[in-house]
């Protein structure tokens, strides 16, 4: 039986990144929990050993039970009866196994029953789970909502809800409505207060992943008469109180094990989470950033499976007297798949480390005041996390779709049949570039880091690092790409027209992404020779992509923009 952690040495490479030392020390507050909790680590090595061993459990479950159940779950799907969502049988087994293995509430503090893991190993678990069953990753990954309760709810709420998540109760984030998808400012679900102050929710939510969960985070309009985001607050709804029913579940193209629900709130009792009016502008923004990192991990997991399925088939399938992998056209496809996989994974973990760094300082700031250096470091990493999250989600999900497409292509006619996993993962992959903000919206979030220079500064910091002499040629290419990127950005911003910048935004964000991922793979190759191949293949791909975008921007006359208007 395969273990999806131990069979993939790339994961351990990313887990053992040098920045982990600092992350672990901050997370464990100098290992002070060791006196209070019998499962807390004694030192850095002990903590890293814990992550390694727990990820081995994740890999064991994923390589066995969860991967084995994936096809059955896809066929059976979730269903709806008597106002409740019903999981496929395999999903029920998967959740039960994850609970027994203690894999819920992984990043929550020990005082609430969590494992107190940094975000990085938690995201690695999500990467592994997604490879086994993409739809199940949603249900399991929604434990991340506990992070929002931990950050913004009061102590009493934390003490009541977080231990339940750590015990295995599931969560959902109820944001979308029929008329409020990407535009959450239009949310209409009504929150009113009884005379005794109890909050009641009334209205409808749509497209809610795992909408029949035990504990919901709900975005609702608490300020009567308001129309924008400042009238929205965040609420916690406890299924034990009743009042929310599932009217129907969507019949989706993929991730069929994950029930996507339409919810009807009828006078549902709820409690306010955090402050009124901050629901969208503060809490949902934080929630979405966490969720986007989760989708980036989910995308990498799908890419991994796509690559492995394609590779295995290409080695096995013989045509014209030899395995098809021996044909350059097929071999190239597979090498590029691996390069995109490795590039998006490198970006995923760089981003998760940055998220860890700033969130840890934020958390420590609740206990004591930070030094000036610490505050500066927090600000630095917060900005970088904000810049890399939409890039990792946007480009990672696009790469995952490209890999799923190529996986079918490698399978040829067989890939079009229902007999191979590739058709399932092709359908599962498709949502990753849509939910938690489409790729187009990730570009909207990312573009300010093009115009304000965050990406450029990050690229310069990578360029300033030392690399082995044999990697110099790749580094030179990246330097040349950077020049093209800087020039393209200057060309676009010189026009000084928002509509024009928006039009060119995706091209510029992708150029930055190509260069950043190019450097990250260079750094991986510097630490570990096994990445030289992907660093080289990706470098060639990035070179062509950057040149294409640079060319488009250089040759575009802003007056031609009118032809692109509908």
């Amino acid at each position: 039986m395969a273990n999806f952690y131990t069979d993939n040495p790339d994961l351990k490479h990313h887990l053992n990144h040098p920045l982990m030392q600092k992350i672990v020390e901050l997370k464990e507050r100098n290992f002070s929990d060791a006196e209070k909790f019998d499962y807390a680590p004694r030192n850095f090595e002990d903590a890293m050993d814990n992550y390694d061993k727990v990820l081995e459990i994740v890999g064991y479950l994923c390589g066995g039970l969860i991967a084995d159940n994936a096809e059955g779950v896809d066929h059976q799907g979730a269903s709806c009866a008597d106002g409740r969502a019903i999981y496929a049988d395999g999903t029920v087994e998967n959740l039960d196994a994850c609970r027994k293995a203690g894999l819920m509430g992984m990043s929550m503090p020990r005082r609430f029953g969590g494992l107190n893991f940094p975000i990085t190993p938690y995201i690695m678990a999500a990467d592994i789970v997604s490879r086994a069953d993409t739809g199940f990753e949603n249900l399991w990954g929604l434990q991340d909502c506990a992070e929002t309760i931990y950050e913004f709810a009061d102590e009493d709420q934390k003490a009541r809800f977080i231990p339940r998540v750590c015990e295995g109760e599931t969560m959902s984030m109820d944001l979308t409505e029929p008329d409020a998808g990407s535009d959450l400012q239009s949310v209409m679900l009504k929150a009113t207060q009884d005379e005794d102050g109890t909050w009641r929710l009334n209205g409808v939510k749509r497209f809610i992943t795992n909408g029949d969960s035990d504990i919901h985070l709900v975005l609702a309009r608490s300020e009567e008469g308001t129309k924008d985001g400042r009238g929205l607050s965040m609420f916690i709804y406890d299924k034990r109180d009743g009042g929310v029913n599932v009217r129907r579940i969507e019949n989706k193209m993929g991730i069929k094990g994950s029930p996507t629900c339409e919810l009807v709130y009828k006078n549902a009792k709820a409690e306010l989470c955090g402050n009124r009016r901050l629901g969208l502008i503060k809490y949902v923004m934080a929630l979405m950033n966490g969720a986007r990192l989760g989708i980036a991990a989910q995308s990498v997991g799908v890419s991994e499976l796509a690559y492995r399925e394609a590779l295995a088939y290409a080695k096995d399938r013989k045509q014209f007297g030899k395995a098809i992998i021996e044909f350059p056209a097929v071999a190239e496809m597979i090498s590029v798949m691996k390069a995109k996989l490795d590039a998006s994974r490198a970006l995923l973990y760089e981003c998760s480390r940055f998220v860890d760094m700033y969130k840890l300082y934020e958390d420590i700031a609740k206990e004591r005041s930070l030094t000036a250096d610490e505050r500066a470091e927090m600000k630095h990493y917060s900005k970088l996390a904000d810049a890399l999250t939409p890039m990792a989600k946007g480009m990672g999900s696009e790469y995952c779709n490209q890999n799923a497409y190529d996986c079918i292509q490698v399978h040829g006619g067989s890939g079009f049949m229902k007999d191979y996993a590739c058709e399932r993962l092709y359908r599962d992959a498709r949502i990753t570039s849509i939910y938690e903000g489409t790729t187009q919206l990730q570009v909207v979030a990312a573009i300010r880091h093009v115009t304000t220079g965050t990406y450029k500064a990050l690229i310069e910091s990578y360029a300033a690092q030392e690399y082995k002499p044999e990697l110099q040629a790749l580094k030179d290419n990246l330097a040349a790409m950077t020049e093209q990127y800087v020039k393209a950005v200057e060309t676009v911003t010189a026009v000084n027209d928002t509509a024009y910048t928006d039009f060119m935004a995706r091209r510029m964000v992708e150029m930055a992404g190509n260069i950043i991922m190019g450097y990250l793979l260079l750094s991986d190759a510097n630490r570990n020779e096994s990445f030289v191949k992907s660093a080289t293949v990706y470098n060639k791909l990035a070179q062509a992509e950057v040149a294409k975008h640079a060319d488009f921007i250089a040759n575009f006359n802003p007056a031609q923009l009118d032809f692109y208007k509908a």
Partner: protein
Amino acid sequence: MSLNIIVLAKQVPDTRNVGKDAMKEDGTINRAALPAIFNPEDLNALEQALRIKDENPGSKVTLLTMGLPRASEIIREAIFRGADAGIVLTDRALGGADTLATSYSLAQAVKKFGNYDIILGGRQAIDGDTAQVGPQIAEKLGIPQVTYAEEILGIKDGKVTVRRRLEHGVETVVAPLPCVVTVNGSAADCRPRNARRLMKYKYAVSPSEKSKLSAEDQAFVDARPYLNIEEWSAAYVDADPEQIGLAGSPTKVKAIENVVFTAKESRRLDNDDQQIEDLIKELITNHTIG
């Protein structure tokens, strides 16, 4: 009702994935070439024990194994999955035991353990495939035995209800406690390791392992009683030297032959029931199937 549950388990060479170097020239198992694993059906038994514990809070599951000192590996594995404690019965004098000597030694250990309500074990181990040790222990302890168990349906009023998987169907039986139940591979798979338990118990060691640790690590283990896996000797369980190990084993291996499967002939059958039935009978008679 809280119960005291013993799970008998064995560390075995993994005979499921044998390579060409699995057997030595003399026909005995080349243990060095095969990884040592938790006997699969003993994991099924452990799961049944843990389910009894889930149903009866306050119950205690203790793993008992006889083998080399390194068998503490399966004790840790069981503890990661939910067992409370473990004992390794290990002694040079116990080496070379057949099923009779093994069951005697383990029965002595159970007597030493004392107060127990139920003993569970796998139907058989994948190295010897005898399925004799569990039943023999029951005989030596003078308590009932239920074999081929697929599921323990419940424990109530001092009786256990067990569904057995037999060749031609299932049978549900009730037995008084204490008793021995041997569990089939068709029973539920064992639950995975638990993350918190793994982090808590990963430094659990037996005395032989502890002696190899640094002074600092020894002090760490000493300060935490739950990290100490017990090791019992033959003398500790009051075993009669004549009845243990090679001395207590009447079974002698006379010869071992390598079986080489070769296709000698092919036969063509017509599509009629009689010919197929005759073939099946023939294959059963010559032990090819069944």
